[in-house]
């Protein structure tokens, strides 16, 4: 069974996503900050990481993405962002191997089911 790590600083958003992913058969581990995320990853490399961009500071998510990618270059990262909405950026960010090595973005707000679909697709090798 595929293992997914959820990294987000809101206990309830984590719980919502955890419950739906678990119901679809994923093994879910959770982390509420960068420190917990590192411990979680050190305990074993998962099949996918779901990472919220905004945590304690606005850049923690970005830094963590680079860190994870460096440690496990093949590990897919799905990044959750509210950037377009928060900053009124009129375009969608694309993943960038050098600057921000994530596999895909998911714009907030989204439903936990949509997240689960996305996770399943990435793990199947699709987009």
């Amino acid at each position, binding site marked *: 069974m595929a293992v997914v790590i959820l990294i987000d600083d809101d*206990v309830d958003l984590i719980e*919502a996503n955890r*419950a739906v992913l678990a*119901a679809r058969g994923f093994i879910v581990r959770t982390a509420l900050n960068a420190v917990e995320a590192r411990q979680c990853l050190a305990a074993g490399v998962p099949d996918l990481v779901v990472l919220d961009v905004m945590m304690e500071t606005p850049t923690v998510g970005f830094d963590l993405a680079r860190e994870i990618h460096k440690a496990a270059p093949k590990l897919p990262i799905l990044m959750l962002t509210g950037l377009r909405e928060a900053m009124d950026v009129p375009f969608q960010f694309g993943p960038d191997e050098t600057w921000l090595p994530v596999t895909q973005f998911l714009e907030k707000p989204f439903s936990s089911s949509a997240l689960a679909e996305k996770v399943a697709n990435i793990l199947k090798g699709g987009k």
Partner: protein
Amino acid sequence: MESLRVLVVDDEVGMRLGVERALRDFAVRVADVNGDVSFQVVHAGSGEEALELVASQRPEILLLDHKLPGLSGLDVLDRLTDRQIERGGDLLTVMITAYATLETAVAATKRGAYDFLAKPFTPEELRGVIRKAARHVVLQRQARRLAEEKRQVRFQFISVVAHELKAPLAAIEGFLRIISEHSAGDDPAVYNHMLERSLVRLEGMRKLIEDLLDLTRIESGRKKREPTDLDLATVARDMAEGFAPRVAESQLQMRIHAIGPLMMKADRGEIEIILNNLLSNAVKYNRPGGSVDVRLERADHGVCITVSDTGIGMTGEEEARLFGEFVRIKNEKTRGIAGSGLGLAIVKKLATLYDGNVAVRSNPGRGSTFTVTLRTADGPGTSSRTPA
């Protein structure tokens, strides 16, 4: 030192040089911005040249002769009107005129001239007019800067509020969607937990909105304050009674320590907000089996309310940040505890209204003690004149 650019428009070169000489070592003191303003003179011999220089040199003050060879002074003013609006009207025009007629004065004023200078004039007369114009320019700028700062602060505040409301909204929406889609499996406990958490987050949103209203009411000064002779000990006991269910639920003990009544002229609503915030923090950040001790006593020129808990406490660095708006100490121990981050900012603002203050002493892992001093309901800086 701030420097203002003066564009002098006159077809007589002697006149322009005279102006330059008169303003060379001249400085104007503007008390409100606490600084001197000096001048830099730019020349134009015609209206056409003046228009070009206004665009390229962006002067703040225009000394404009009415009688010019091509475009007249009034023509120049006419053409500047539109640009003035674009620039936010920060170009002040002083008309120079040899034949000061009422008609010219009216026409120039209609086109936005700020002042007049009749030819011939002495260097002192010129400086007088420039002094007045310079003060106007600097103060206008200052006012614009303050207005802009105020807009920024307001914008930031609203952004933070929006963010603080969006987070619980996203959580509640997420949970409700899962419940309605039944997408989290068949265990009813999972759904019950989601409902409970949704209620907790809604409660948090409501508290945030209430706190925001309290804060704006206090800050705007719109809320009518009604100081009456109040026994703070009774108010504290009444409040503690309201907290009883939560105190029991968290297996705490709440004790009120007051010897007899503690009278003070105060607004009951304000005292309740102060106590409510301190007591609810002492309960929220406590540990099962712990206690909350509320002491009310007379202090020099007023009263002192002390609320001690046996909770998680905080570090010195956390203490220092505590009374700001939207400050919440985030760590493993505070996770899952809801709060608006406004409560202590409100307590501090209210204490100020009583010429008092609020302080905290804390021991990480052992507990915190908040001390509020209230002197008089008459407002900041008044208690020395009206001792209690």
